[in-house]
């Protein structure tokens, strides 16, 4: 597991975060984003049936998708923080537990984890589908977030910890007051990327009959048999969302860079 230390961490399959140079009128991002947006607007105008009906049917699903994504990302950040701290802990048992967690979770497909947690939890208590979905996403993404936190913490120069210890801070105080505040800045881009990846992966929860964007599309299509048209719109809506957030992440990154100067 020897990884080369670097300040910029790249561990994700979220989305292509636009580069700063990528700013022309015909950048790949602009073509995709505005192209998708134009199709979403134009198709219902050109042929309201079925496109306008599809579009009216989907907003509930978009909201549910957001709900699952935001809840999962917030919880996985918390899990990831403690997993990352565990991964660098000097206490052997803690270190092992965190590492095993990461290894196990990264080795099981998210879809399998979803089934597993839903039916495993169902054996003990009947939980709402959405709780099972968010739990599974959190458990899964917590492991990836843990690796991001670990890499972020390790990217902070050793001198920072030494300076804090030399002043009389405890290791824990140094971690919370000196190392982690610097880590948050470093991990913002990969966390943004994970957010986008999670947004896409949240479509898997439709398998538990959580009525997210994909599920809503499926419901509409199976009722009306407009499969092609419905999934076109569903795909375009996902695309617009992920491209929107990838731009947002890029902007936040830029702003952080500027504030540093």
């Amino acid at each position, binding site marked *: 597991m020897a990884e080369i230390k670097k300040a910029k961490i790249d561990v994700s399959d979220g989305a292509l975060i636009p580069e700063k140079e990528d700013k022309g009128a015909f950048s790949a991002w602009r073509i995709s984003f505005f192209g998708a947006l134009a199709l979403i607007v134009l198709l219902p105008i050109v042929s309201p049936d079925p496109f306008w009906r599809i579009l009216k049917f989907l907003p509930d699903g978009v909201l549910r998708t957001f709900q699952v994504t935001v809840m999962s990302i917030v919880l996985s950040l918390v899990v990831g923080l403690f997993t990352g701290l565990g991964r660098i802990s000097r206490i052997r048992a803690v270190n092992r537990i965190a590492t095993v967690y990461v290894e196990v979770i990264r080795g099981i497909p998210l879809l399998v984890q979803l089934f597993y947690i839903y039916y495993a939890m169902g054996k003990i208590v009947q939980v709402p589908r959405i709780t099972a979905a968010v739990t599974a996403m959190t458990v899964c993404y917590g492991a990836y977030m843990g690796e991001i936190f670990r890499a972020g913490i390790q990217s902070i*120069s050793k*001198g920072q910890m030494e*300076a804090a210890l030399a002043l*009389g*801070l405890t290791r824990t*105080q140094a971690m919370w007051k000196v190392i982690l505040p*610097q880590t948050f800045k470093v991990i913002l881009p990969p966390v943004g990327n994970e957010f986008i990846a999670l947004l896409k992966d949240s479509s898997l929860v439709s398998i538990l009959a959580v009525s997210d964007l994909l599920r809503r599309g499926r419901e509409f299509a199976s009722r009306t048999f407009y499969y092609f048209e419905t999934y076109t719109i569903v795909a375009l809506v996902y695309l617009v969302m992920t491209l929107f957030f990838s731009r947002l992440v890029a902007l936040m990154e830029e702003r952080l860079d500027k504030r540093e100067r």
Partner: protein
Amino acid sequence: MSDRIRIRNASKHFGTLEAVRNASFSVAKGEVVLVIGPSGSGKSTLLRCVNRLENLTSGEIYIDEDCVTDPHADIRKIREEVGMVFQSFNLFPHLSALGNIILAPRTVKKMERHEAEELGRALLERVGLADKISAYPDQLSGGQQQRVAIARALAMNPKVMLFDEPTSALDPEMIKEVLDVMVDLAREGMTMLVVSHEMGFARAAAHKVVFMDNGEVIETGHPDIIFKTPREERTQRFLDHIL
């Protein structure tokens, strides 16, 4: 004369590399001791053992009555009283100059904010940076950063200050501003252990010079004697290189 720092038969091995071999010397209260020697001679390693950023392989280091090298010693408590200044400054980049200085008093000593800020302001004034109170490290020159780092260490009111090549990372025109602060500190009676090759500082402030080579203390003496008439040939050879 009462010793503030006593280093007794200190050895430090990194694997098979003997970075420090059987080094012994002491620093009296109010004394300024300069450690010189070629790079790789173990002087920085030895200094880092004094506040246990590194652990000695064998030997003892005492600060007053406290045995630093005792595994049961409350090293955190001892570190409160031992200020350290690093070659690469190691200021906290997410905090302003004032924020850097008040972090430890606030966190470790639980000092009230206004009290800590007053202290921070006074210290920044002392190192000549009263106008940089809210500047962030990356807005400061190397010399200014190092002066903030000295102020930060002083904020814990230490009884000993360690300097690990404090001017080696600085452009020549900034060295003087840092040395001036260090000389002032020495004149005020601070006990200082300094790893550096700055002859200007040695002449102005050092009471004693320790020459190390290859992990060993070769000779110890008054700066005038070490620099002008060293006993050991190795010392002479080293001085020929740097003077």
